[in-house]
């Protein structure tokens, strides 16, 4: 369908704005660096009775991993603040992530497993997506807070107490990593299953396709 006066195709609607796309990819980069360097740091003194695969880790040795970790934390934090500020102040969260009810999430998850979940309009998140993105926001916030507690257990002593002590804060940091990674894995799987969502997050909209007459 083309515009009657100009004969041009109408611009396809924006699915993801510039700030969302920018912060999404910077967050992905920061998370990847923190994840892989964090695994190396974990291996230096494992909290649990296992080590993470060393060949996947980043940094070469503990000192290198720490350099990466404490550099990428700035990217994660500053980018995260930009995203949260945009989300709360510009109404992005209210428009995109709200409302979300457990019943709707459950219905959408069931629909997804039976292959009936529609993705007609990528600019509207279904309930399962909303729940997943809220879980990621909370997971990364928990990672940042528990990370701060481990980094500064003396200067931020009240935060450490909130987590129940230094050693518990380490466990929280690890568990938050595992949960956030699990949600991220599902997220990436869904992108593989519906690849045009990747295009939307890269260029903001889907390319207009001239439908054959």
């Amino acid at each position, binding site marked *: 369908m083309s515009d009657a006066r100009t004969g041009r195709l109408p611009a396809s609607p924006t699915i993801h704005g510039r700030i969302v796309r920018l912060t999404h990819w910077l967050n992905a980069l920061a998370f990847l660096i923190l994840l892989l360097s964090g695994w190396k740091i974990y291996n230096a003194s494992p909290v649990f009775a296992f080590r993470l695969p060393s060949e996947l880790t980043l940094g070469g040795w503990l000192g*290198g991993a720490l350099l990466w970790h404490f550099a990428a934390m700035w990217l994660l934090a500053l980018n995260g603040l930009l995203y949260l500020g945009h989300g709360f102040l510009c109404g992005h969260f209210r428009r995109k992530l709200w409302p979300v009810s457990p019943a709707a999430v459950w219905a959408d998850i069931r629909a997804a497993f039976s292959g009936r979940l529609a993705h007609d309009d990528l600019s509207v998140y279904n309930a399962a997506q909303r729940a997943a993105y809220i879980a990621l926001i909370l997971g990364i916030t928990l990672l940042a807070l528990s990370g701060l507690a481990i980094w500064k257990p003396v200067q931020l002593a009240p935060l450490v107490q909130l987590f129940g002590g230094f050693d518990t804060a380490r466990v929280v940091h690890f568990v938050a990593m595992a949960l956030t990674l699990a949600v991220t894995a599902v997220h990436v799987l869904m992108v593989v299953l519906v690849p045009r969502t990747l295009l939307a997050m890269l260029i903001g909209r889907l390319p207009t396709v001239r439908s054959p007459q």
Partner: protein
Amino acid sequence: MIKLKMGERFAALRNREIASLERRLFLRQGLSMGALSLLAGCNVTDEVGVENALRKISSWNDTVQAKLFDPKRLVEEYPASAIVRPFPFNAFYDEDGIPAVSAADFSLELAGLIRERKPWSLAELYALPQVTQTTRHICVEGWSAVGQWSGTPLRHFLERVGADTSARYVGFKCADDYYTSIDMATALHPQTLMAFRQDGDVLPAPNGFPLKIRVPTKLGFKNPKHVRAIFVTNEYPGGYWEDQGYNWFAGL
């Protein structure tokens, strides 16, 4: 409980072997970004540039941490029941490398911006006023252990020997060739101790006989053992691990 601790200790030893091997690889291959460059689909060739950038961010983190450091904030003290026994041994060498320091021959050398630089014998040091603290030692590797140390606040000693407390750094040289340095604000913190005793006894050899600087506001590698010289300076002195890439301020 003790079995677990011993297990941790062996794990720590094994870690060190792995760490030293990995460190050599690190120095040869830069930051070995294998996994990341694989995922990013690019070959990061300028690894020296990347390492320089990361080290710059690390010095920026030093600046931030110095600002975050509250010289009046005290570290949490624990009840005696929380003390970990035996206290973990950790160094850049195995236990057979622990230096044998002779109490009779020991003398603490002073250098740099200090007015009275005469060496101190162990008897003279032991005669200084002492306090006791039960605090958590946190290792850069992630493990932590509560221990009890007794000794003289470093602040008291620095003032006594006429150190220039407006200088930037206090450095330490050790009998095992370890060396490190801390900022003056931390050196003057009331809980930074010249520890001569641990857990009621003379400091055991594995834990730093005869003198360990106990800095509960910093990571374990900023708590030098077997200290044989203290110096005050305005020139960045670095440290054994810091020169290899550990963050210098390493504040808790």
